[in-house]
């Protein structure tokens, strides 16, 4: 048993820094305001993080596969608007699968471009961010979308209801997180995602079908976005057509905060969930302490930079970069 040196402790802090920071924040906020750790507050935070969280789960797959997805924000607007529109035309039982099919078709298109045509994912999804935004506006005619009969529909249960005292959005978030975590950590497909993101060339030579794996990561991302859109639509039963605008970067912030490398090949679902929760609890904690909502932006900035910096500093063994 080697002795714990100062360096080891430093390395542990840097590696698990995100968990340590999470615990420190929780304790600090709990001391500042006892309401912070009340059960209804915790449920409230997770519930309001759930939509962002579900999207982050899908993006985690894409990022581990070595790509980016900047289109999730406008795709979420799209699925929200579509499901609200179809709700009144087809009824909820048909509207949900129809919306999932349309969102998955968009995901398939992106997956085809990035996976099979090997186009740069940043630009493709940037283009799709704009294109899907235009599609949504054209679809809705630029108007907001509302459900006519807000009282009499069971659709509201998805975003507003609760089962056995636990809000449904939390159950959806947790359920999806568990399923996707198993998929990423315990199945051959999950290992292939890591392989493709870690070293695409090596993976190809080992017989991993790179194109198909990348395609599938975008399908998973689209599926998560569709779920998030459904939750958003059900929560408010009406929506602006820009509801997801800007979320792509917040989602990415949560994924990076969880420790996934943008170069691909590393990250886990569990860590992403921690990243999402940190963002949510910081926001909530700062509000409870009495600060305005925008203070969280600045705090998030500092935390993201510190988290990534410490992570790579631990890997290279020195704090400052070797850049001359």
């Amino acid at each position: 048993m080697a002795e714990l040196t100062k360096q080891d402790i430093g390395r542990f802090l840097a590696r698990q820094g995100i968990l340590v920071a999470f615990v420190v924040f929780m304790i600090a906020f709990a001391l500042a305001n006892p309401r912070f750790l009340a059960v209804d507050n915790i449920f409230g935070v997770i519930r309001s993080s759930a939509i962002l969280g579900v999207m982050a789960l899908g993006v985690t797959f894409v990022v581990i596969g070595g790509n980016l997805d900047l289109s999730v924000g406008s795709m979420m607007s799209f699925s929200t608007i579509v499901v609200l529109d179809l709700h009144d035309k087809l009824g909820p039982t048909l509207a949900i699968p129809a919306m999932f099919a349309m969102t998955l078709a968009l995901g398939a298109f992106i997956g085809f471009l990035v996976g099979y045509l090997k186009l740069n994912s940043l630009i493709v999804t940037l283009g799709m961010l704009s294109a899907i935004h235009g599609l949504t506006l054209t679809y809705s005619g630029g108007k907001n979308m509302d459900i006519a009969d807000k009282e009499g529909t069971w659709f509201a249960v998805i975003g507003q209801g609760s089962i056995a005292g636990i809000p449904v959005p939390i159950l959806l978030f947790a359920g999806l997180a568990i399923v996707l975590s198993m998929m990423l950590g315990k199945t051959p497909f999950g290992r292939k995602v890591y392989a493709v993101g870690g070293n695409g060339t090596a993976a190809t030579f080992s017989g991993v079908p790179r194109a198909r794996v990348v395609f599938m990561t975008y399908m998973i991302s689209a599926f998560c976005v569709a779920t998030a859109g459904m939750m958003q639509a059900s929560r408010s039963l009406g929506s602006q057509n820009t509801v997801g605008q800007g979320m792509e970067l917040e989602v990415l912030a949560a994924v990076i905060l969880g420790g996934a490398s943008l170069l691909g090949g590393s990250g886990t679902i569990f860590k992403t969930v921690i990243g999402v929760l940190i963002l949510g609890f910081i926001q909530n904690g700062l509000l409870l302490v009495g600060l305005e909502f925008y203070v969280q932006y600045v705090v998030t900035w500092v935390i993201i930079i510190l988290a990534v910096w410490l992570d790579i500093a631990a890997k290279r063994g020195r704090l400052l970069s070797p850049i001359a």
Partner: protein
Amino acid sequence: MNKEILLKQGGIWAFILVELIFFTVAGNFLSTSDKSFMDFDNMLLLLKQSAPIGIIALGMTIVMINGNIDLSVGATFALSAIVLLDSMTWPFMKEMGDWSIPLAWAFALATGTVLGAINGLIVWKTGVDAFIVTLGSMLGFRGLVFMYNGEQPTSHLNWTLVDFAEAQFLGLHTATWFLLGAALLLWLLMTKTVHGRNAYAIGNNREAAVNAGIRVGPHFLINFMLIGFLASLSAVVFYSESGSVNPNDGMLYELWAITAVVLGGTKLTGGYGSIVSTLGGVIAIQLLRKGLGHIGADTETVNLVIGLILIAVLFLDKQLNRKGKEELKV
């Protein structure tokens, strides 16, 4: 080889020509107004409207040539605008009368430069990828914007300033002059100076550049300071005229700027790109926006079309490169 360069750099201008012809012809059949699309005033206005995104896109070009990216320009834009308008209401500035204008401009430009320097220093000293650093500061700077004045809009109209911003010199609007002037200076910087040459070298092959004795960090820092400066210059030009800024202004500007730069053919991986082509990319986007409006299409379709064109350009670029490489092998 020369043919290839011509094909790549000429591509965006050919695209602009196609747009002009298409919208002029289609406009004859579809347009509801009597004015022709190629109307001279219309074109002048187009240049003016391209200025805010255009000036930012110029800065994005040099950062991307370095192999970096800056996602925080929208927030820098907003914060500089607030400093510009708010500083003119400070008591000592009020006493100075119209002399406060150049000072307010200086404050705003300094704000942008400092924010850029913060990004540049973090990228340099921590070695964290510029994408992550500026993603963080995009949030952080936006937080600063809100902390300055809460959720209230910041407004201050100075009529001398408005007159200046609306003035036309030799037919071109003030904003257009700033766009063209900035483009000229940056073009000189990137093609005629050591800094420009080194910036290309670093983006092309960082290892090789380091081995050749080029100090990477300072060049990063300079380019980030320049894009910060240009983001605030864009704000100065735009808000001198409008006189009111919302804390959400400038959101998604980074994505528009990147789109224009990529349309102009600059590589995300660095080492390749040109200021002049970016100017083409900016004009092409604005032309599309105006043209679709001219032929009576919903303004909403603009986003759809731009997005698809961006992907198509990427695809064509890939095909061109592949062909070039195959020729090289033979």
